[in-house]
């Protein structure tokens, strides 16, 4: 919804490849259990955002995810009954019984929070650098109406948000400002008007007789190839890397050379496609 075409390798890659690259990062975050690798992955996503010219956007998303990440750490620390290293005894919690905070529960919560941060970062990267129209157009060959509905929704949501703000302003200009319910009614009525206008536009653009779009051939660019290869590399590395880690009953894991090598491979796989800057502008 906030896609802006910029001169970056990720923007230059086709939308399907860009989406697969971001999906590979999400997959890696979900399967990797080692917090060191997750931390490296989070930093790599941030650097990838900068490489795509959307560093501030990705960083802002990561900052917005921080409260939720903190909540995960706190909730897991409070509810988890596992772990051997008790670091605080909070006493009787009534129906919840004895509440003990363990180091393992906090560490596991921190690891889950890192997973969340990486996923949000990858989604922010996709939202900023993957063309939703192109992506949905490719899906229109599979499901014409659903893909178009999704496209229009991505266009309409910010438009309706603007409308709502405008109507809110108009209501503030009334000498007797209306209640929230009345404003909501006005916004809903406006949204229905907008929907009718959009439906009329779709009709006069021939949507009523729409056919499945023809397959378009487009030569694979160096960026398409680079991001495809790296998406596969990220997924394979995440699924096969030798960095086991367990949190319960006590923390056991590797921070040895093999883990550092895996981290380096992962970071290179995420960032390598951004090294190629030829032909990024349109």
């Amino acid at each position, binding site marked *: 919804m906030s896609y802006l*075409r910029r001169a970056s390798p990720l923007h230059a890659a086709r939308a399907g490849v860009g989406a697969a690259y971001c999906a590979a990062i999400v997959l890696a975050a979900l399967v990797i259990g080692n917090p060191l690798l997750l931390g490296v992955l989070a930093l790599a996503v941030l650097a990838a955002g900068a490489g795509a010219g959307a560093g501030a956007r990705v960083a802002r998303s990561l900052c917005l995810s921080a409260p939720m990440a903190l909540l995960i750490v706190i909730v897991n620390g409070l509810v988890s009954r596992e772990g051997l290293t008790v670091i605080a005894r909070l006493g009787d919690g009534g129906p919840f019984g004895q509440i003990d905070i363990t180091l393992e529960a906090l560490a596991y919560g921190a690891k889950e929070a890192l997973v969340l941060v990486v996923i949000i970062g990858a989604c922010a990267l996709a939202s900023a650098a993957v063309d939703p129209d192109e992506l949905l157009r490719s899906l229109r060959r599979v499901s014409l109406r659903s893909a178009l509905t999704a496209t229009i929704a*991505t266009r309409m949501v910010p438009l309706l948000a603007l409308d709502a703000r405008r109507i809110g302003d108009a*209501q503030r200009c009334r*000498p007797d400002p209306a209640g929230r319910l009345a404003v909501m009614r006005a916004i809903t009525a406006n949204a229905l008007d907008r929907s009718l206008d959009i439906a009329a536009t779709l*009709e006069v653009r021939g949507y009523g007789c729409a056919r499945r*779009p023809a397959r378009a051939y487009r030569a694979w660019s160096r960026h398409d190839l680079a991001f495809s290869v790296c998406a596969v590399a990220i997924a394979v590395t995440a699924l096969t890397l030798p960095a086991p880690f367990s949190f319960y009953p006590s923390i056991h894991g590797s921070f040895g050379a093999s883990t550092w090598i895996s981290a380096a491979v992962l970071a290179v796989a995420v960032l390598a496609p951004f090294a190629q800057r030829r032909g990024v502008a349109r």
Partner: protein
Amino acid sequence: MNALALEGVTYSYPGAETPALRGLTVEISQGEFVVLAGGSAAGKSTLLGVACGLVPHFHGGRFDGRAEICGMSLREHGPAALAGEVGTLFQDPETQVVMGTVRAELAFPLENRGHAAVAVARGVEEVALALGIEALLEHSTAELSGGELQRVALGAALAGRPRLLVLDEPTSQLDPVAGDELLGLLRRLNEEWGTTIVLAEHRLERCLGAADRVIALHRGEIVCDAAPSGFLDWAHGAAPALETPGATLIAGLGLHPAPAGVKQARTTLRAAGLLPEREAPAAAPERPPRRLRRRQGAAASLRLRHVWHEIRGGPAILAGVSLSVAAGERVVLLGRNGAGKSTLLRHVAGLAEPTRGRVERDGRVALLLQNPGDYFIHDRVADELDAASLRAAGLESLAARHPRDCSGGERQRLALAIVTGGEPAPAVLCLDEPTRGMDREAKAALAEQIIGFSQRGVAVLVATHDPEFAAGFATRAVLLADGRVLADSSPADLLAGGWYFATETARILGGYRGILTAPQALAQLRPAAAPIGSTR
């Protein structure tokens, strides 16, 4: 083959008591440029709806008669089937763009028709080049200005090279620059591609010069169907509200023919010896009158002191604007889209806080934003206002109606009554683009209302793109650009001296004596009967 052929078409919207079109019979040939004229609710938009198939297939209702569009019967073909032959452009550019990027938007109608990928790519490229929007192809539609968005919507309407293009007030939300560009494009499409154009427009002075024919509608019936000069001759006697200022001027001077544009009016005046063969060079701009400059420091209802509005990580929308408006003064704010007019009004009304500087108000500020419908929250007009205010606004007859079912002018009056009602009475009244989609009569009524407010001591500030409307009420004109005040002077100075922000009469007379309207011109030219410019 005709582009459009209607025979005895009568149409009523669902639930409507009276038909919107009554026994309409008309033929429009391929390659014609036709302008539809008429007041609000005359049937212009409904006729365009028939031409693109939305009436009756999308809107429903009762349809009688026969309609053929580019050889296709309307009974058998809906808007989607007609879309290959008919391109359509409405008023609001925001709701005519459905995709996220310009390229996707232009490709959409071609893809719907099942064109091969190569044909889609070629069609997009060609229409983008034809409309000069090739540089925008990769842009997100969310980042386009109103003028660019309208151009993209026109591109989508033209992507399949339709034979007929129907447009419903496409310039009503554009500034004069973007509006003139769009009309220039239409003229080129008509001349070079042979596209038939049917255009509904209230500001006839902007488009008659390009038209081959004008069809005037009144209450769903055709009341005039003639070439532009024939239409203006008819309007002079039968419908003065449809007469252009240039035509009023020429007819008032007893000259002929009625001019379809500025050039023709000047030729007629020259032939009559009222304009010199060669114009005198334009005089150097004068300093603002001392009276106006002094007023900045006089007792004012509104004072803006070095007001800045800076977006974090973005531009400065207002850059140190200082402005004072005295009680009873009527100020018009002019400037292209994005100049900062609406933001300025939001600051005046307290909807936005300056990032630097301050706004001082001598009482309540009433602000009427661009869309009057945003103010309505009830299902009946009577519930929006108390009985006394309703009577004062002259809206008693509409009491039982739903506000959204009122005409543009009625909605504007209702919204104005809402914001100016209540206690205490406003000291400042701000109106943001109040004439969008209004006919000339409604504009004149609004101008009278504005003058009425100022006579009661209310300071009035109006942002508009419509110089003819501004000339009807303003006592002072302010030109904004890039958030800065470029000029602050009398309307005669500002509206008579420019190209875009000038009335038609001023353009015809070349800014002579700061004359802005046809009545002013007639009052000054009739007794003189001396060539303009000789007294400069």
